[in-house]
């Protein structure tokens, strides 16, 4: 049995390792045109900033793959011939497979801005982008970043660390407020300015201008402001990378359509991770998840499904974490954004913020049970938060046991008594 995996990102790797654990004698080939070995995409920023080298970004030693008999191939797949069960490759011979996993990840959105193909205009997603950014940084004094999300602020931090002046253009009225509630979002606005970067809220990109050599020299914003810059970072989200299977017999929507066992519409072809769109989760809405953790969980589940186990993907209690320059953020469960897009029945919020704007906590509940927890500048224990949400603990219970959830390092100041006092006051 030969399993071919297209993509060596976290999803492909999680699947490969899971299959190897379950099927010691199956042949596994992991194909990537991007890199010889799997690396951690979140490390791209640390390579650029000099915190680590590329070799430190690889979660497994090179010898790991040989030891576990997982074949690696550096090449691009040009076409999937699902009839003959083979892959047409860019430079190597045809590859015949018995089962195939498509884990091609996502692509940065380019929303059709005038000038978006100029040199110096780029997203930040893969190794090609990192290399481009190293080249594009040459002689650049200022940059504009379009879009207010996690990659945006990472890119801002990266450029800022090289002394490049950064201006953010954010369509929303506050940073990332299509995900964060207003108060947390306001904290990010504040810290961007504290770090010495500029923020233009409620502002969109109108046009990107280039010089004669085809290199970016500035942008015009929707407010008519002209900003000189040598780099334009496009970080207005990502979309499933389905270039390979567009106009193919494999059914696609926004992503590759799969069931909860990651099976596509074509026999023996599976898809998981950022590029997959999961149907039949029950609520009628399809699910596209594009963060590291879900890529990992989906890959593992897809590996089980490919190995013949009857695995159904259960996303479980949502969680995520990130760091905005120096401010850490965690979310467990359901927390509404500033626009209130999520319809949460009887939604109530309890929110505490330290006057120094470096710590905040939000509890979302519906009067009886806890639904979600947001932390800023506080580390909370995954196991505890997940348990409370899963077990539908009351908000009173959560407040009484809040200390249990703290995961900050020893000797750090604990704010729980302050928080609980303040939140209980808000309740009454």
């Amino acid at each position: 049995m030969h399993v071919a995996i297209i993509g060596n990102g976290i999803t492909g790797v999680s699947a490969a390792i899971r299959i190897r654990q379950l099927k010691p004698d199956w042949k596994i080939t992991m194909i990537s045109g991007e890199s010889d070995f799997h690396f951690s995409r979140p490390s791209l920023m640390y390579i650029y900033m000099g915190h680590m080298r590329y070799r430190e970004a690889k979660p497994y030693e090179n010898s790991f793959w040989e030891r576990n008999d997982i074949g690696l191939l550096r090449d691009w797949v040009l076409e999937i011939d699902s009839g003959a069960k083979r892959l047409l490759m860019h430079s190597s011979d045809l590859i015949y497979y018995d089962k195939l996993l498509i884990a091609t990840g996502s692509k940065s959105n380019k929303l059709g801005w005038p000038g978006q193909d100029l040199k110096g205009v780029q997203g930040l997603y893969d190794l090609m982008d990192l290399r481009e950014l190293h080249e594009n940084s040459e002689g650049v004094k200022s940059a504009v970043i379009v879009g207010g999300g996690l990659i945006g602020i990472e890119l801002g931090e990266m450029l800022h660390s090289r002394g490049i002046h950064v201006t953010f253009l954010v369509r929303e009225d506050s940073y990332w407020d299509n995900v964060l509630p207003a108060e947390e979002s306001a904290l990010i606005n504040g810290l961007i300015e504290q770090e010495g970067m500029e923020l233009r809220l409620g502002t969109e990109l109108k046009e990107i201008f280039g010089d004669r050599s085809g290199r970016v020299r500035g942008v015009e914003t929707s407010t008519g402001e002209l900003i000189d810059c040598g780099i334009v970072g496009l970080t207005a989200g990502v979309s499933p990378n389905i270039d390979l299977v567009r106009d193919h017999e494999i059914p696609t929507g926004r992503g590759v359509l799969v069931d909860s066992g990651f099976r596509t519409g074509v026999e023996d072809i599976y898809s998981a991770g950022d590029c997959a769109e999961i149907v039949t989760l029950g609520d009628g809405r399809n699910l596209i998840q594009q963060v590291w953790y879900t890529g990992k969980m989906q890959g593992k589940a897809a590996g089980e499904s490919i190995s013949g186990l009857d695995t159904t993907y259960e996303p479980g209690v949502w969680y995520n974490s990130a760091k905005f320059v120096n401010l850490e953020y965690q979310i467990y469960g359901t927390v509404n954004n500033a626009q209130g897009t999520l319809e949460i029945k009887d939604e109530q919020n309890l929110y505490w913020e330290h006057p120094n704007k470096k710590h905040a906590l939000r509890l979302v509940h519906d009067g009886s049970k806890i639904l979600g927890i947001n932390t800023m500048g506080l580390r909370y224990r995954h196991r505890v938060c997940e348990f409370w949400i899963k077990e539908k603990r009351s908000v009173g219970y959560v407040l009484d046991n809040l200390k249990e959830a703290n995961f900050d390092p020893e000797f750090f100041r604990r704010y729980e008594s302050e928080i609980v006092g303040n939140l209980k006051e808000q309740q009454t």
Partner: protein
Amino acid sequence: MIDARTLDHQYDEENLGFPEPPKAEERKLDIWEKLSLSLVGLGVLIFIVLLFNTPLRGTWLGFILAFAPMVAGGALYFWLSYKNTVPGIKNDGNFYKNITSRGSLGWVAGILMTGFYIVLYWWPQYLEGGVRLVDPSSYAISGAPATHWFLYGFIYTLALIVFGIRMLMRYRGNRYQQIRTLSVMFFQLGFAFILPNVLMLFNQPEYYFSYFWPLKYDYLFPGTVSYLANSPGGFGVFFIFWGLVMSFLAVPVLTYFFGKRWYCSWVCGCGGLAETLGDPWRQLSDKSLKAWRIERWMIHSVLVLIVIVTASLWINSVTQGKVLGEFSGGAAKWYGFFIGAIFSGVVGVGFYPLMGSRVWCRFGCPLAATLGIFQRYFSKFRITTNGGQCMSCGNCSTYCEMGIDVRAYAQKGKNIIRASCVGCGVCSAVCPSGVLKLEGGSFKDRYKGADKPVQAFIDSIKHVP
């Protein structure tokens, strides 16, 4: 079809890596930073001049002039360069800066430090100028003229304090790091420098309370024990008692509650220097499986060696040389030369800029080996991994001075329970998603999510995924 841009991508990231991106502008030093660095430069100059036999050498004025400008300038510079930054992780450019990434300056630093140790151990007569410079302070503390060992202790302590100030500033916003740094500064200054010298002032044996067997191997040698036992005033007997309590009671009991960090990254002088002077180079430790394998063989061999040497000395002492003859004395001498001098001193500190800050602690220290065995099998201490939050970025592994591949555990959701972990807490500090926490939870759930110790040992040899 996939786009042409990706098809063109033939980059050899394995061998070429990603070179330093250009900087828009170098951050310019402000006037105070320039002045503080000038003060260091001036201090070095004065120090060198005073090494020669000037009338000032041996006076308090000479002593102050030789050291105060360097120390004040260095401390001031570290304070100034961090004070206006936002508290957070300061690792920008570590792998671009020549000195912290094994570049030519790194090699120069390594050679200078190695050279200093070689001179110190085998040609101390060339340190005469420096020794005479610190005479006034030696007279004041110990009532005797300085020796090259006094000079060494003095410089060691100064380096630890100045770079300790750097740590305190660098980790503003991380109280664990700050308190830990203050602790190593305190133990070095008080217990490893002032106290032993003051004991000499009162005609007592020079004794280091913060070092004990098997790191301070001769403290349980029969020669030392009988010397201490026969020293007047009864202090010696207390020192023997203290040494035994530390080696055989404190090690298991404190390690059970706190892990080996209670010693290695909070008290020990070797660890203290590694955590302060060595901090800029912590990322250079080798994280490979191969290095781990070498480490386990090496450090446990040294432990076995010192146990054999100590035991043979005692056998010899009890049997009055009838059983082992010349062997035990010779073994002790060779151990002192190869392990005590070359390994712990020359390589241990001299190789900071080349192999990271914990070469000795990781590959050689027999006390670390003992503490490690207790930490691995009989301790509440662990580094807890926070559920599934790890995104494999690798900051933890990169900045582990002991070369532990922390990420390998964290990305599997396993707790990190490793013999070598000194509990410095930097993995937890640099983690961008709040995944790691050093703590001493209940013994029962310690292995939750982690492997069973014996099975883990077998797996690590067999390299199970």
